[in-house]
């Protein structure tokens, strides 16, 4: 193994199961923890019990998001992502599809209120996170970061690998924003449309999935020529990565669709009011 790296990247040295530190990842985790503390400090504790309860749950969601990022980026998943396309895909799922909604759910109620009170910022966010824009940005990032020429050029340096991870995280935050974030309020983007939005992204995911799973040859030189890890040949590893994208990504998105459905169902029930009693 080569010397200390601040961020994971592809290596020419053989893989070993000796843990290695990635200080950049630790710094990111510490920054995210500090950011949550700052959000709570600036926003203050909500006066109402419902807000306090939401913030408590939000704290757990934020912690879950940070944990997902930590697992994705630190050893061993982060390090393996320089050797195996399947590990790289796991990293993508955690960074772009698992961590962002949890982080957004973890933002304290008061912080959202403060954001809502800034019309200029809200206007920019409203445009950037318009469902069509968000979906397009996310799909572009997904497509670009899975292009063989991009992966082969970026994954070989810590900075390039960091760029890919950052794009995934930012893309994920933009993608999940219209579904999860309460600001800006989108009256017409209700639960049925949110379900449609998530469903559309499961369909769009099919393109890179097919590209990876049914490719006759390994697409990524960085993984094809990497020192072997385990028993997977390069093409099989790529097929596993494609299946992970379809099955793992699909599972996450369908879970979100199901949650939206039950939230919708619950709200409809509340709107109808209690059943009349005799």
């Amino acid at each position, binding site marked *: 193994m080569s010397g200390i790296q601040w961020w994971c990247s592809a290596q*020419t*040295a*053989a893989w070993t199961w000796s843990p290695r530190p990635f200080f950049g990842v630790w710094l990111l985790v510490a920054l995210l923890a500090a950011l949550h503390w700052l959000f709570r400090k600036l926003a203050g504790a909500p006066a109402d019990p419902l807000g306090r309860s939401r913030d408590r749950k939000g704290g757990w969601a934020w912690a879950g998001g940070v944990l997902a990022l930590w697992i994705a980026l630190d050893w061993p998943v982060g390090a393996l992502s320089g050797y195996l396309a399947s590990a790289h895909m796991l990293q993508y799922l955690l960074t772009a599809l698992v961590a962002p909604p949890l982080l957004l759910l973890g933002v304290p109620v008061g912080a959202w209120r403060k954001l809502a009170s800034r019309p200029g910022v809200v206007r920019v966010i409203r*445009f950037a996170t*318009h*469902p*069509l*824009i968000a*979906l*397009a*940005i996310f*799909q*572009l990032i997904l*497509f670009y970061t899975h*292009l*063989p*020429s991009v992966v*082969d050029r970026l994954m070989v340096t810590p900075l390039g690998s960091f760029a890919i991870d950052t794009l995934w995280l930012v893309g994920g935050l933009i993608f999940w924003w219209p579904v999860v974030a309460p600001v800006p309020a989108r009256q017409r983007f209700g639960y049925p449309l949110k379900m449609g939005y998530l469903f559309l992204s499961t369909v769009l995911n099919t*393109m890179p999935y097919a*590209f990876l799973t049914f490719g*006759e*040859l*390994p*697409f990524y*030189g960085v993984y*094809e*020529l*990497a*020192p*072997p890890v385990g028993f997977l*040949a*390069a*093409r099989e590893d790529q097929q596993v990565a494609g299946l992970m994208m379809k099955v793992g990504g699909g599972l996450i998105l369908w879970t979100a669709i199901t949650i939206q459905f039950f939230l919708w169902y619950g709200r409809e029930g509340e709107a109808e009011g209690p059943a009349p009693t005799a």
Partner: protein
Amino acid sequence: MNPTICRRIRCTPARVAPALAFISCMGVLSTGCRVEAPERSEAEERARTTGYRGILLPEAGPRPDFVLTDAQGAAFDFRVQTEGDLALLFFGYTYCPDVCPVHMASLAAVKRDLSVDEQRRIQVIFVTADPRRDTPERLREWLANFDPEFVGLRGSEAEVDSIMLGLGLPPAIRDTAAGPDYAVGHASQVIAFPPGDGFRVIYPFGTRQADWKHDLSKLLNR
């Protein structure tokens, strides 16, 4: 018309922009679907000039004449037993953590995709540069992980080094002082001897399966 409905369907720039952006992005994505594998300038440039993605040595003479022992313990005469076939010769060792397994895995994967007739006309010859640790059993088992048809050859260190030197390759460096898990420095290229001799093609480490796929049929059917 009801003014509320009229306002709802009015196409203001703020409403149209996201839709246009979405359509544009999807257009870019659909165009990108036709993007080929990454540019591989060196190998592709060679293919444009010589027809092969490997490095062509046009006047390399006949294939080398040496006899080593195969993993079954029988003598293997390289020149005689590979005559008329495409021989892919590589010097490595089974404890190699990177180059050797990658080359062998690539060759095995691409060979599997060839026709049965083409597969029969290819011989992958792996000569161990580390005969101390690469026992016949070890050699056989290791190669069988890739393709049981691959031929493993052994000889003394001096014999193997001499063959390598004869082919213009540097002799192996065996760092035995580093303990039982020592590394062996060895040439990392596969040398292709097409049927009929006359020329060789060198495949350095970094040769992709796409390159092998491009060249193997050409080498067989030249």
